[in-house]
């Protein structure tokens, strides 16, 4: 009992420490299968912990945990409220499902003797992402960001194609710039306030709002986060990275890393700098809407014109990030709810889509449009899943995608931003086009005679199960919206300083 209670008290720490410690353990275990089991176990444990935390938060309000017993603001505080609880669940959950998928997928794409390194990187990445979400310390955010980023570069570089290395390198360069920006930003804040604890920062910044360094800090952090989340003009690293990473890694990264960056932006703009400073003084909304709007449109258009399907999905991810930014820009309850729900929903749909492509890659290697001609008749389950997830991406009612898009439209229209509403409609149509294109080719075109497609079989169960888990999640959260919307709403309310 007391043990249980004690454990419960240390959940925030465990959330990070567990994957952190098990990462080196992977190196020791070495053997591929065993490593997978470890990673799987740890990730699942992390997922359970995250759920427990979410339950706590929704029950008893924000949880604060002083690392090493040093009370904030001197020590490092782990602070969990609805928002980051949700992010924790998302990250750990996706990681677990992606690992299920990875079991058979990875050996196909990663040389056997390097698999254990792959999972090590995976766990480190997980650590970083969870850490960013869980910590209440600005500098700590930077540290974990770097951990996750470095791990991610590694994961990308495991890709089988030679382009993977260059993509990873490019990602590294941009990621480092982003990291540095954030570091400088945090440094400036520390210089001005002498504290790194977020809550503390928020208070001490009150008087210094109009000072140039604070504005600079804001700019640094904004751009830094923007780089990490591939906000439109800063997106160039993403397509290559997602496209050339191993399928399982693509699933994991695509579903999580940008989301966490969005979380960081939310945290800083709302919790630390505060709404009125960010939106009234600096009129952040303008910048965001411009970047987001252009991004959503350009990225969707690019997605339509891609021949490589993973690249297509990567572009659509950039567009989706744009949606989240629009939601943030509205700075009203509905808009923010939309962004936060979309963190989750986009993870679900994009995860599913990348998994489907993983299945395709598993069977026929290539994931180019022309290669999947007529494949749907050989892999109906895979493409059935792809279709459903695609509908969710488009935002058809009764899929998760509809929920977030609906709230987003509400938020946008509350501010009377008609043009944006139209833009959303148009880009949804573009989504119809690029998803529909794939489906049409896969269902109605005929395979080139003598191609691998003709001999292809349905993907193995071990990959279909996680795939369909995500698809069903898409449908489930499309109908039972109470849970995600509820959490997101309270999170949004907290960010806006409202009380529901």
């Amino acid at each position: 009992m007391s043990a249980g209670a004690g454990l419960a008290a240390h959940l925030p720490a465990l959330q990070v420490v567990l994957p952190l410690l098990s990462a080196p353990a992977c190196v020791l275990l070495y053997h591929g299968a065993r490593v997978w089991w470890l990673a799987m176990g740890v990730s699942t444990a992390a997922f359970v912990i995250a759920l427990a935390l979410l339950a706590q938060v929704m029950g008893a309000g924000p949880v604060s945990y002083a690392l090493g017993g040093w009370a904030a603001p001197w020590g490092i505080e782990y602070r969990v409220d609805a928002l980051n609880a949700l992010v924790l669940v998302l990250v750990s959950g996706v990681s677990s499902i992606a690992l299920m998928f990875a079991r058979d997928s990875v050996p196909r794409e990663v040389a056997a003797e390097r698999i254990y390194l792959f999972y090590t990187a995976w766990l480190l990445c997980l650590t970083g992402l969870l850490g960013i979400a869980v910590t209440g310390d600005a500098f700590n955010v930077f540290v974990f960001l770097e951990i996750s980023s470095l791990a991610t570069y590694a994961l990308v570089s495991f890709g089988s194609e030679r382009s993977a290395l260059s993509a990873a390198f490019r990602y590294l360069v941009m990621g480092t710039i982003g990291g540095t920006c954030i570091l400088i930003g945090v440094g400036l804040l520390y210089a001005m306030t002498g504290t790194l604890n977020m809550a503390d920062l928020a208070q001490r910044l009150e008087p210094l709002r109009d000072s140039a360094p604070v504005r600079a800090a804001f700019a640094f952090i904004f751009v830094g986060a923007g780089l990490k989340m591939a906000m439109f003009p800063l997106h160039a690293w993403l397509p290559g990275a997602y496209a050339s990473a191993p399928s399982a890694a693509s699933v994991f990264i695509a579903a999580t890393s940008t989301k966490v960056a969005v979380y960081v932006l939310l945290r800083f703009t709302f919790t630390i700098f505060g709404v009125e400073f960010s939106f009234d003084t600096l009129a952040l909304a303008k910048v965001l809407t411009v970047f987001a709007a252009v991004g959503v449109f350009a990225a969707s258009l690019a997605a339509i014109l891609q021949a490589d399907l993973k690249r297509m999905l990567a572009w659509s991810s950039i567009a989706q990030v744009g949606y989240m930014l629009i939601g943030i820009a509205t700075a009203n309850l509905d808009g923010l709810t939309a962004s936060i729900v979309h963190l989750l929903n986009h993870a679900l749909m994009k995860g599913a889509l990348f998994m489907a492509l993983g299945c395709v890659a598993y069977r026929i290697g290539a994931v180019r449009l022309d290669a999947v001609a007529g494949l749907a008749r050989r892999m109906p389950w895979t493409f059935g899943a792809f279709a459903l997830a695609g509908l969710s991406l488009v935002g058809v009612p009764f899929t998760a995608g509809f929920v977030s898009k609906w709230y987003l439209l509400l938020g946008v229209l509350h501010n009377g931003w008609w043009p944006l509403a139209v833009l959303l409609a148009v880009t949804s149509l573009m989504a119809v086009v690029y998803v529909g294109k794939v489906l049409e080719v896969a269902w109605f075109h005929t395979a080139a005679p003598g191609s691998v497609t003709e001999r292809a079989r349905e993907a193995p169960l071990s990959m279909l199960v996680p795939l369909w888990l995500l698809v069903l999640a898409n449908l489930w959260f499309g109908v039972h919206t109470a849970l995600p919307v509820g959490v997101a709403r309270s999170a949004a309310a907290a960010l806006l300083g409202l009380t529901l």
Partner: protein
Amino acid sequence: MSAAVSLGWIIAVPFAAAILIVMSDPRPNQREGVTLAAALLLFVLNAALVPRVLAGEALVLHLAEPVAGLPIALSVEPLGMTFALVASFLWIVNSIYSVGYMRGNKEQHQTRFYVCFAIALGATMGIAFAANLFTLFMFYEVLTLCTYPLVVHKGDAGARAGGRTYLAILLATSIGLQLLAITITYVIAGHGDFTPGGLLAGRIEGPIVGVLLALYMFGIGKAALMPLHRWLPAAMVAPTPVSALLHAVAVVKAGVFTVVKVVVYVFGIDLLAGESSAAWLLYAAGASILIASLIALRQDNLKRRLAYSTVSQLSYVTLAAAILVPISIVGAALHIAAHAFGKITLFFAAGSIYTAAHKTEVSQLDGIGRRMPWTMGAFAVGALSMVGVPPTAGFLSKWFMLTGAMQSGQMFAVAVIVASTLLNAAYFLPIVYRAFFRAPAVDDAGHAHGEAPLPIVLALSITAACTVALFFWPDLALLLARDLAQAAR
């Protein structure tokens, strides 16, 4: 059985039927038996509702609320009742017809055909009884998706091309424009429940009204308002029963039904009548009536000619709604029923000709009326109804449209009706003349054929009879339509 419950059943029956049909796959008789039974049951359930509707009972069934503020609910109102009655009755007839047609032409994938058909009817019922915009939109999309397999039934390149156009236009318009319009409505009004007098009444004014109206009218692609009509001719690659029940009744009527619902229950005719920015609809509808007729004039393929005639006839309903006086709303409601009976008869005839004589072009029909007197007789009745000549149903709706037009002094509408009457005659009468008064062309003097299989002849005779009967006994349709006009006030 409480009314609300029976509402639930009305939605449930077709979907249940679909499942049963799947399960009875290898056994055609059982499969078609299930279809027929379901159709009958559905019609009975609908008919049972009529007295309650006429009594003015408000029947609401709250199903779920997936997203806060977006309940999925059903409710009965006169227009929906009319639509549901017509659709469910014609489903019976069409099932009889389908049996004859699908077997007569030895079509493939018949089970898939009947399943999709049942689902389509379920969706149609959902549209007819939707209590709010969101529910309606949802079933609207279901209808689009579940009719797609029917359109591409043949599976060849042509069918796929047609299906592509079909899906592209319907999805694009509904997701791109209609959903946006619906959202805007929810934001402005706070809810999307259809309310007599219009749920936007008094809430908006100025150019935005015209814009929103445009979003709706072009968002409702199924109403085939030009230039968004292309999907309808494209859908003609489908087997004739599909063209008949879905693309002359269920799907297209779902479109104009939504149009009328939007005009009456979302905007309210007073709001639109008072708003100059909404005036464009009348002219758009008129233009699409005339242009479609002119195109129909030049089609030699019988089904295509019928398709374009449908496009123009659908815009009749839009036009009637756009006249914006209660009496013309009556016309709109009546035309939904009247055109349904007439046009399904025409399509039945086309299918009958195809089955018996394997002819698809108008120019091949010389003297066919002597071999297939019942088919072509029914065709003649349907044609007269399209022209709007008594004693056929078409006259009723035309009468109320004209009365409305005269009442509101809309001389443009009057002129359009005059012109389109002549055009309709110009492209339908030649067919009748050929069939009955020309000697059969020389080439097929050799191979003789008689009437189509009995189920087909039976079906088209029934619908033709209904087309005439509706003229002599319009009372029920009229009562429902008048109630609708009341709600419009």
